[in-house]
């Protein structure tokens, strides 16, 4: 081996991490611009990784996974027996984003969330966008996530969506928004946990890159929630409402409550009396001002929504309507991340902000329209079809990966209720090197940055970067076997 650091022109030694890495020009590669030619900002990472012995890298991977299990950084997959606690696999090769790219993402997200909050205030208020015919009225009013109960409710600062986790993908054409996730987005704890593990594993490199910090997320979240408090209270009582330990994201709820220094409560810890919400403490009842809820709308309050809910608090919505407590996110935000409404977000941005959207949308065919339905059914094998109200990768058909029988069955489902489906082209998701048994191999990735909105909009420079661990797979959802990796945003 030569003593000098390697450059892209030299052949790689057989045992090197990247010896078998195949650059594929069909997909944007996050690390390479050509075969064995790392992008400028990834060169140091490449040099260091390539200089490490395979055992060293394997040990690093093993350490990271063990630390996850020890700390109990687990999530549950619904519908799987015996899979109560599983760790989200972590991949130890970080993905790097340069300052200019991050700046663009950040501006795009700020623009999008501003428009979506205005949109929600409008459809639960005067409904101008509907009467102006920009969006079909029936699509909004018929959406199961539209909460008629929210009509006329005054929401502090007009902030319906205080927290969102937007899924972004990158193709050779640039970044696109895949989903907005405006209800109870999760993943932020994995972003922070991945960072913790990687900072320890690649300490020297981490310092050398001067990776921008994300650890203050808990502070920002608390500050954001404080700003939404119902009255001008100096130190509002904030709680995080979790469905409990059996929820797939319980680790995250616990983690965030601790980061913020607030109580982690379940429905049975809270009660409503005289229009105020209280929590049961060992020294009596204490008034609650802000609830960061990680419980779905349906289960928030059995008196207002699903009467069989065991997770919620009877009377909570009443207290909310009176303005005595703030619920973040507000009930009813799901209508804005419905997959058919998604298709209109560029129009929503133009309508409220008179600006062109910075982040592109994925081409979406609505099966509720005859054209869209016909196109979808004719091209099933080339499309990804999703149900409008579902998330987490449940209930979707990935055309190219499906069998004719699966497609036939799915087509029948679509025809039963076309308005419930949309289709999108299969996206050429970007790839990043991931550690596999054969060294580094390209795997498809996306990213989910988290946007907070209180008095102002705030983001930490980081994201939960999801990875499709199966070779060639495009499905990155944690519930479908995806993993995560750390995202390093570089300073200017």
């Amino acid at each position, binding site marked *: 081996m030569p003593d000098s650091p390697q450059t892209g022109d030299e052949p790689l030694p057989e045992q090197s991490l990247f010896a078998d890495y195949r650059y594929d020009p069909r997909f944007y590669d996050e690390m390479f611009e050509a075969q064995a030619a790392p992008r400028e900002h990834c060169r140091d990472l490449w040099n260091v990784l390539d200089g490490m012995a395979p055992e060293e890298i394997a040990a690093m991977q093993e350490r990271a996974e063990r630390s996850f*299990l*020890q*700390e*109990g950084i687990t999530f549950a997959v619904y519908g799987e027996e015996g899979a109560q606690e599983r760790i989200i696999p972590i991949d130890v090769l970080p993905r790097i984003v340069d300052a200019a790219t991050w700046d663009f993402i950040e501006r795009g997200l700020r623009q999008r969330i501003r428009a979506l909050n205005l949109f929600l205030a409008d459809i639960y208020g005067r409904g101008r966008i509907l009467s102006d015919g920009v969006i079909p009225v029936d699509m909004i009013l018929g959406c199961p996530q539209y909460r008629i109960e929210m009509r006329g409710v005054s929401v502090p600062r007009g902030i319906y969506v205080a927290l969102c986790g937007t899924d972004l993908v990158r193709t050779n054409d640039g970044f696109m928004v895949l989903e907005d996730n405006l209800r109870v987005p999760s993943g932020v704890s994995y972003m922070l946990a991945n960072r913790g593990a990687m900072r320890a594993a690649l300490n020297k490199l981490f310092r050398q890159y001067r990776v921008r910090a994300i650890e203050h997320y808990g502070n920002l979240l608390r500050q954001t929630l404080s700003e939404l408090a119902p009255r001008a209270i100096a130190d509002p009582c904030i709680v995080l409402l979790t469905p*409990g*330990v059996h929820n797939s994201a*319980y680790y995250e709820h*616990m*983690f965030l*409550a*601790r980061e913020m220094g607030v*109580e*982690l*409560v*379940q429905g*049975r*810890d809270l*009660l409503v*009396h005289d229009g105020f919400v*209280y*929590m*049961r*403490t*060992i*020294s*009596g*009842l204490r008034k609650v001002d802000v609830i960061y809820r990680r419980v779905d709308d349906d289960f928030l309050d059995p008196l207002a929504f699903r009467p069989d809910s065991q997770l919620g608090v009877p009377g909570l919505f009443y207290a909310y309507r009176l303005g005595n407590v703030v619920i973040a996110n507000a009930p009813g935000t799901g209508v804005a991340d419905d997959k058919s409404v998604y298709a209109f977000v560029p129009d929503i941005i133009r309508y409220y902000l008179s600006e062109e959207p910075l982040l592109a949308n994925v081409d979406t065919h609505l099966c509720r329209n005859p054209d869209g339905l016909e196109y979808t059914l004719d091209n099933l094998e080339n499309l990804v079809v999703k149900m409008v109200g579902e998330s987490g990768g449940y209930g979707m058909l990935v055309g190219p990966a499906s069998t004719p029988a699966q497609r036939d069955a799915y087509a029948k489902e679509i025809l039963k209720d076309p308005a419930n489906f949309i289709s999108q082209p299969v996206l050429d998701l970007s790839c990043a090197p991931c550690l596999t048994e054969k060294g580094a191999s390209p795997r498809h990735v996306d990213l989910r940055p988290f946007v907070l909105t209180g008095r102002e909009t705030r983001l930490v420079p980081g994201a939960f970067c999801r990875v499709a661990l199966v070779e060639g797979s495009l499905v990155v959802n944690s519930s479908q076997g995806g993993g995560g990796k750390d995202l390093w945003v570089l300073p200017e």
Partner: protein
Amino acid sequence: MLSRNAQGLYWISRYLERAGHGCRLVQIQYRALQDRTVQELDRTWLRLYRSLGREPLGGRLGSNRDDDDFLFADAYTLTDDLAFEPNNADSIRNCIAAARENARQVRNVIGNEMWTSLNLLYLGMRDLAVQDIWADRAGGFFVNTQDSIRGFFGIADNSMYRDNGWHFLQLGRFVERAQHMTALLDAQLEVFPTDRRHVERDWRSLLQIAFARVAYSRMKSLDFQPGAVIDFLVSDRLLSHSIRYSLEHISGSLDVVSERRPLAVGARRRAGRVAASLDYDWPNRDPGDDAATRATLGSIRDACRRLNEDIEASYFNYDIEDTPR
């Protein structure tokens, strides 16, 4: 502090204390296996089972053959029952699992180190079976588990903020300890009545279970007289496993957590009353009257059980109508 969190902390330490006590019982029993006769062992197994309020599998103890194979076959089955039996709610593994489940519920109020130590303890025994631990006569498993439990309390001791959460952890620990010590002493008197000729080792092992053997020799005597041993384990104020010591810690913690909670006076009063009776009535008892001693132990145990109910009703599941706001 959220009631549910206080309850979680209280039960973490109750379950861990219970598991630790179970381990200690088996560990001391294993020492006996080294050199005692089958008949003697039967009696110490009986003491162990009676103190846990449990029937051995098959419903009875009592071997009638004086051979080693039989003896170890017995120990194997009983070890499995005490350590891993899924239907034994108080088995070591079930206790550790329950403690961990409670910890999972309150993870945001305990430190990472506390959680990690408990989580590792659980993960280490989750998939074990008795044959995995039998190779070293199972002793190592019980010793290591006790070490880990002590490790957990050590971390708590060194890292927890001394607010109400800490005191609920203390309460659980000492309420549990007071209860199992009364049960153990009662079982001892049942199996080894003081009026029969006593074998010193049966009383020495009792002291060993309570980590009191050395202290007893130093402070009292080298003669293990039943009455003196019982008295030491009940009323000594400086012995960490005596009933009196547990009551003192219960009272101390109740004082702190009831500071802003008048509802809880009942619990505090009950703990104080038992402690006072140990200070003033207990010394006047007839040490030879086992029935009277056992009746006293029974009433202490009863008081501890009601103390638990008081704590539940005052702090965790109180009625909303009579609560201060």
